[in-house]
């Protein structure tokens, strides 16, 4: 059963239209990623869900009751939707305990100390926000939102202030926490890896239009269009047919001496465990993942399995 349903919302800042009729649903206990580049409208969707932006049209409902339509506007404090800000927005004048307790209702299922224990911050309840590290502040911000026992929690770029080396552990931790608490979550990110790692569903946005909604596997295996395909890594267009084209991913191509397609190596770019090889075939550049670097100017053959070809929208 869906917890939230967003129907055809449009939004603009002044003359600048940022959302063009977006619709999607969030199921109970599900983690949804809003994935897109900056300016795609993902944060605006988050803010309309929280109640800080009033869409121009459309409707949003939660548990089948309206949060927003042309006649209704439930205020942020009455929505029971928590929000974790990118810069955490902890109250600087209150200690950690008071920060968390400000939004807690009487008869909450956990005490503040228990909450701090859940995220491994035992004994820090008397500290002020500025006495904590960035990572600790983020945990407080997440716990503060959870302690109010919302039905849905919104997270704005939760990994943007985390060091690359710590991200892996943090993604795992966040997913585990949300799943254990059984709370539904929507998080905004511009990093495909974040979305693939922790989301149950991914909503891909481009210029205020939803391009595709699906599980991480669906998004990877059956991308809707070239934009979505590109988000998940380099690809090659094999053939174009009107609005559609068939593509093959760079990692599904290989270099084979006896392959039919032949081209000249333009560059080899190291990317950790493999190389991305740019190969020129007539006037088109192909990208192929290959375990070793190739000599520039060398003629090579490109091979791929035809059953790996995918048909996507040409946009």
């Amino acid at each position, binding site marked *: 059963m869906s917890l939230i349903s967003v129907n055809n919302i449009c939004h603009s800042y002044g003359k600048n239209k940022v959302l063009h009729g977006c619709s999607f649903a969030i199921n109970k206990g599900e983690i949804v990623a809003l994935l897109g580049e900056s300016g795609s409208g993902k944060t605006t969707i988050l803010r309309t869900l929280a109640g800080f932006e009033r869409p121009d049209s459309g409707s949003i409902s*939660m548990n089948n009751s309206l949060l927003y339509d042309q006649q209704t506007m439930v205020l942020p404090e009455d929505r029971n939707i928590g929000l974790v800000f990118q810069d955490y927005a902890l109250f600087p004048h209150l200690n950690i305990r008071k920060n968390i307790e400000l939004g807690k209702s009487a008869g909450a299922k956990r005490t503040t100390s228990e909450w701090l224990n859940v995220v491994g911050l035992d004994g820090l309840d008397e500290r002020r926000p500025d006495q904590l590290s960035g990572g600790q502040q983020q945990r407080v911000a997440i716990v503060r939102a959870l302690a*109010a026992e919302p*039905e849905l929690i919104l997270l704005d770029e939760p990994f943007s202030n985390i060091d690359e080396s710590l991200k892996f552990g943090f993604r795992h931790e966040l997913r585990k926490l949300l799943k254990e608490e059984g709370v539904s979550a929507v998080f905004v990110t511009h990093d495909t890896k974040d979305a693939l790692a922790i989301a149950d569903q991914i909503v891909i946005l481009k210029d205020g239009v939803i391009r595709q909604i699906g599980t991480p596997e669906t998004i990877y295996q059956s991308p809707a269009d070239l934009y979505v395909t590109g988000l998940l890594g380099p690809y090659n267009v094999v053939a174009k047919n009107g609005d559609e084209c068939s593509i093959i991913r760079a990692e599904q191509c290989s270099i084979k001496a006896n392959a039919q397609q032949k081209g000249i190596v333009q560059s080899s770019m190291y990317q950790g465990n493999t190389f991305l090889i740019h190969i020129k075939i007539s006037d088109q550049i192909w990208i192929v993942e290959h375990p070793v670097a190739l000599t520039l100017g060398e003629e090579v053959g490109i091979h791929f399995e035809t059953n790996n070809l995918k048909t996507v929208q040409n946009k």
Partner: protein
Amino acid sequence: MKQAGTKHSLAPTKTIGQRQWWIISTFVAVVVLLSPILALFPQLFTPTGTAWKNLQETVLLEYTINTLILIFGVGLCTLVLGTSLAILTSLFTFPGSKFLRFGLLLPLALPSYIAAYVFAGMTDYSGPLHQLGRVFGFQDLHFNIMNKFGLIVILSLVLYPYVFATARVSLESRYNSLVENARALGLKGSALLFKIILPLIRPALIGGLFLVMMEVLNDYGAMKYFGVATFTTGIFSAWFSMNDLNSAVRLAMLLFFAVGLLSFAESWFSKSHKVVESNRSSVTTKKKLVGIKAMLAACFTWSVFFIAFIAPILFLLWTLQYADHERAINEWFSLAGNSLVSGLAGVFAVLFIVLLTQFTRQLIQSRLTAVLGRSISIGYTLPGAIIAIGIILLSSFFDGILNQGLLLTGSFGMLIFAYAVRFSGVAFQPLQAESEKRSGKLFEAAQSMGLKPLRILKNIFLPLSLNGILLGATLVLIDILKELPLTLILRPSNFSTLATKAFEYADDELLSKAALPALSVILVGLIPVLLLHRMLRAK
């Protein structure tokens, strides 16, 4: 329709109403606050009396010319004085230069009406200068400063710190590295001054100059004491001597127009001459002056400090000896009490309006709430006399409706109202600065945690604004204690404050009696100067 969520029970339509209530109450509060200013406009369409025609034919030209002479005279003098002092103390060291960076701000504590009678008293025939002259055998020193040009000098001596302060900030925090660069490129002397330094600090100078000109337009006490007829004194005499409200309003509108023109010129100029500000603070290496240059610089700067600040204080202390001490002290307590009561009442009125508008602005972020939040500082850009006339208009209008005699006119409440109109902008600045410092997301965080507006007000807004509130309240209190024209026009009969009494005694040539209240006003006025100094250092 069923309500979303389980913990909250307010119906959606009702909650929208709750938000509107904040906007409506803020809107009403702001309209009430600005009503004395708005009340002036319809008066323009009432038929003019013969009194106005008379005034137009006789003194209007004189008012205009005098006002212009004073604005430009004081403007030019403060510009030269403030800029040269700022350059000397910011870019060079010489004996005492470190102290003077602070000391040269101090004349700001002298209200111009006190400075006017102090300087007149000092140069008077029975004053210390003549006495000193006679000791050295000069029997007939003859100079009279009681004219426009004397007034220009005196106003410049107390107002130059505006230019000095803005130029100093500009020189020290922003452009020092550029000046050093220019030196490294081989520029020096007057080329450095005219090609690099002055163009760079020009926006700051314009800002300071604007403040000076506004102060000149606002001044009543000094002009009245020196008998120079300007718009402000004209408004007073139309109202007090001729009881001609119609002419007073018309003069006020002309003054209003002049202020608008000045503000427009200032904003146009600062926009078209914008210098890109660098946020990097540069380590200052000042050039050390030696020999004759050091002596000249020290002589010039120290004599400005001595003439503009030390001499007036010494003179006031000197005149104290002629006062009846017991009476003076008794009177002081009652005057200080009145000043404090009206000041504190004013502070509460100001805080109410400022906190309401700023809270609403942060709770409901929209163009309307932003405009409402900013518009409360309009009163601070207007001369007190304009606001006073607006208040009188309103009071007499409502007294006419109520038909209970003069219930509002000349009441304590209307005086406090006037303070709120004039000084809300003073408390607005520190509160605004305080809220800009912190993340704008805190209100949204609190809302998303389910906090209702009143709890946000109590738990988030007020505690976080405490510093701004305290600073704003202090500045407003001091401004009210120093304030003259509003209090003079609007106070209830037999209600005197330190400021009005100092002025009245001085106006009646009772300098010894004026000394104690005047010194008190100056002492109080030192507090914001100290704050300003700390702020400039922090920058």
